[in-house]
């Protein structure tokens, strides 16, 4: 089996971390269903995709997401949290 380099764009970083993605971008405050931004915001979508692709060439920590803020997204949302077993 040959490996394929991947980069994940996640809006649920805690949930995604459970699967230990090799590289991941968390666009901070984006809601579920808006991985690249809001509809029609092409410049923002391009920025997010560019940032994600650039992680392929950066020394990221495998298994952890890189958080980037995009103020132009507007209203921020709290990502879902993983329920911890007591």
């Amino acid at each position: 089996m040959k490996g394929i380099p991947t980069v994940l764009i996640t809006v649920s970083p805690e949930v995604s971390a459970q699967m230990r993605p090799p590289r991941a971008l968390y666009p901070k405050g984006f809601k579920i269903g808006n991985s690249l931004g809001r509809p029609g915001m092409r410049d923002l979508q391009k920025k997010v995709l560019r940032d994600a692709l650039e992680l392929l060439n950066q020394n990221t920590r495998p298994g952890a997401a890189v958080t980037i803020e995009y103020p132009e997204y507007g209203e921020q949302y709290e990502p879902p949290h993983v329920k911890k077993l007591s």
Partner: protein
Amino acid sequence: MTISRKCVPFTPFERELSKSTIAIVTAGGVHLKDQEGFNIADELGDLTYREIPADVDSADLMVTHHHYDHRDADEDINVVFPIDVLRDLHAEGFIGGIAKKHIGYMGYTMQLKAMYEGTAREIANDIDKASRADAVVLTGG
């Protein structure tokens, strides 16, 4: 080959993005309107996936997924499946090409082992053999 459950399966990327072909794999339930939708009636989820060609018109794509609000994706599929955005980055020379094949599946399942050991592996093989992608962008909902 057995994948360790403990380590991160990291594949290095040692290319220039401007010379690299990129594929999209989304768990956001994206598929062509004329493809069969995902089975949202089955509480166990749907382990199948759909192939999306490189020359797809984004207006011909839709979402079948009942575990996230996809109204924004219905309006602009690029919020979960950025095919037009990828085309823009290609036109600008930021990436070298768009893969021949992209993948949509419904990232909700109660059959994690079958997803992990079956579907995920099939998608990886498909991407490896048929899409000629140098790297993959993964998105969820």
